[in-house]
């Protein structure tokens, strides 16, 4: 009976998370377009609904009812699989991301996370990496030159940043002594991990930009070079899933993980703990700010070349991540 209850609760929670994420991602597109618009002194979507509020709905309707073209020459199985492989793992990371402390409403304890795995961070990393294969598959399955180059570029970038990312996350883990994201947050009640881990933070920002394919690392879909990169041959919703997964869901989820690792998760800002703001609101404010930061970077900087990214990853970011481990180790010896 208890098992059944857990299953029901989990199912409901998962549904809420997935549907919420879908809608959220749809509106994140609007957010990005609005932000980009105002950065460029134009309003962005405006006339479809009040202030363009119905724009994502219109886009979704359009994309969903578009003819689903599958070119003759593609590898059909991989072609379909690729879009799912990019999208599903990005959503699955959500399973281990906690959005706040458990709280009680009407006597029911609600845990604002799906599960609290003790290897949550590792799982997140693993899923993050799997979703990249979607991109590579897409490039391969399209059987066309531009997607192929796009996919291979992404593979090259992947090899570069994955290593650095792994080492960069060691710092916070060492300080918290746990892989569980919830425990990492709880360990930051007094001081955020950004303090000694500043180098790791730089590395993580680099890796997230690379993983989500935002400028300056958007080599895989550089429009001027590769038309649409790996998505060139995709139409309709199969196409829609890629940017949704990469640019919005993955960016959002990875922002959440970064907040958890370096900015104290749902802990309130220093000296502002007395404010009557619920924990998950704090969390969302932080994630939102970080997400905006990524947008800000995206709409400002030019793009690196792919070999320069790998060079940067191996020659700069990896040593930085290692140095960070060293610093954190000394920090722990001295303070704690």
């Amino acid at each position, binding site marked *: 009976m208890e098992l059944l209850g857990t299953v029901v609760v989990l199912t409901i929670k998962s549904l809420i998370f997935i549907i919420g994420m879908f809608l959220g991602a749809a509106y994140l597109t609007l957010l990005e377009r609005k932000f980009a618009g105002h950065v460029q002194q134009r309003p962005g979507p405006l*006339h479809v609904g009040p202030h363009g509020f119905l724009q994502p709905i219109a886009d979704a309707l359009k994309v969903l009812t578009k003819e689903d073209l599958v070119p003759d020459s593609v590898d059909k199985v991989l072609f379909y699989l690729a879009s799912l492989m990019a999208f599903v793992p990005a959503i699955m990371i959500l399973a281990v991301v906690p959005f706040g402390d458990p709280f009680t409403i009407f006597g029911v304890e609600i845990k604002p996370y799906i599960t609290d795995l003790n290897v949550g961070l590792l799982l997140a990393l693993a899923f993050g990496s799997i979703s990249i294969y979607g991109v590579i598959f897409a490039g391969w399955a399209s059987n066309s030159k531009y997607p192929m180059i796009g996919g291979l570029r992404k593979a090259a970038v992947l090899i570069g940043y994955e290593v650095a990312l792994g080492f960069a996350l060691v710092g916070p883990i060492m300080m918290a002594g746990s892989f569980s994201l919830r425990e990492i947050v709880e360990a930051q009640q007094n001081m955020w991990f950004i303090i000694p881990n500043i180098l790791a933070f730089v590395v993580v920002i680099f890796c997230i930009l690379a993983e989500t394919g935002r400028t300056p690392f958007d080599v895989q879909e550089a429009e001027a070079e590769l038309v649409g990169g790996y998505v*060139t041959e995709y139409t309709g919703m199969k196409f829609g899933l890629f940017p949704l997964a990469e640019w919005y869901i993955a960016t959002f989820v990875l922002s959440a993980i970064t907040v958890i690792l370096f900015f104290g998760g749902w802990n309130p800002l220093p000296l502002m703990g007395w404010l009557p703001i619920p924990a998950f609101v704090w969390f969302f404010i932080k994630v939102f700010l970080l997400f905006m930061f990524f947008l800000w970077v995206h709409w400002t900087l030019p793009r690196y070349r792919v070999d320069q990214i790998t060079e940067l990853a191996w020659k700069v970011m990896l040593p930085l991540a290692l140095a960070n481990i060293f610093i954190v180790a000394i920090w722990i010896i001295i303070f704690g």
Partner: protein
Amino acid sequence: MAIKHNNGIILTTVEEVLSWGRRNSLWPASVGLACCAIEMMHTAASRFDTDRLGIIFRGSPRQSDVLIVAGTVVNKVAPMLKLIYDQMPDPKWVISMGGCSSAGGPFPTYATLQGVDRIIPVDVYVPGCPPTPQALLWGIMELQKKIKAKKEGKLWEEIPVREVPTASQPIKEKSPLGF
């Protein structure tokens, strides 16, 4: 195609909603051929900002709904333009921007295609050399009207031929749902 001739209330509503989605999210393929491409870029840029109307330019024809043929189509590029058109998924529309692509324009020569409608069907012709961004936006809105009219069960041949207008005033009433 059964849906097309069905006038049941539910289907009509669905059609209405779909048509609304389509005309408010027209993504053009960014195929710039000549001078008109510059004005097309200006239409997308800050001063006129097609993004307001949900129009964003896509690099790949596979993800676009409308092909804005901006500039002179010469004989040599015509087969490739046809290929681009064939690569676009249905439903798709074509705006022929400027005189050159509509009818050869001022280049009645051996090298120029005398009208892109000889290789692909065109929905809206926008005269001008090049048309100003406002003229192109007007053309895009004509296309939106056409998509709307199609939803109402009219074949496009039945839409009355618009007389060449005198100057038009800005639209005063904003529809809350867009166009």
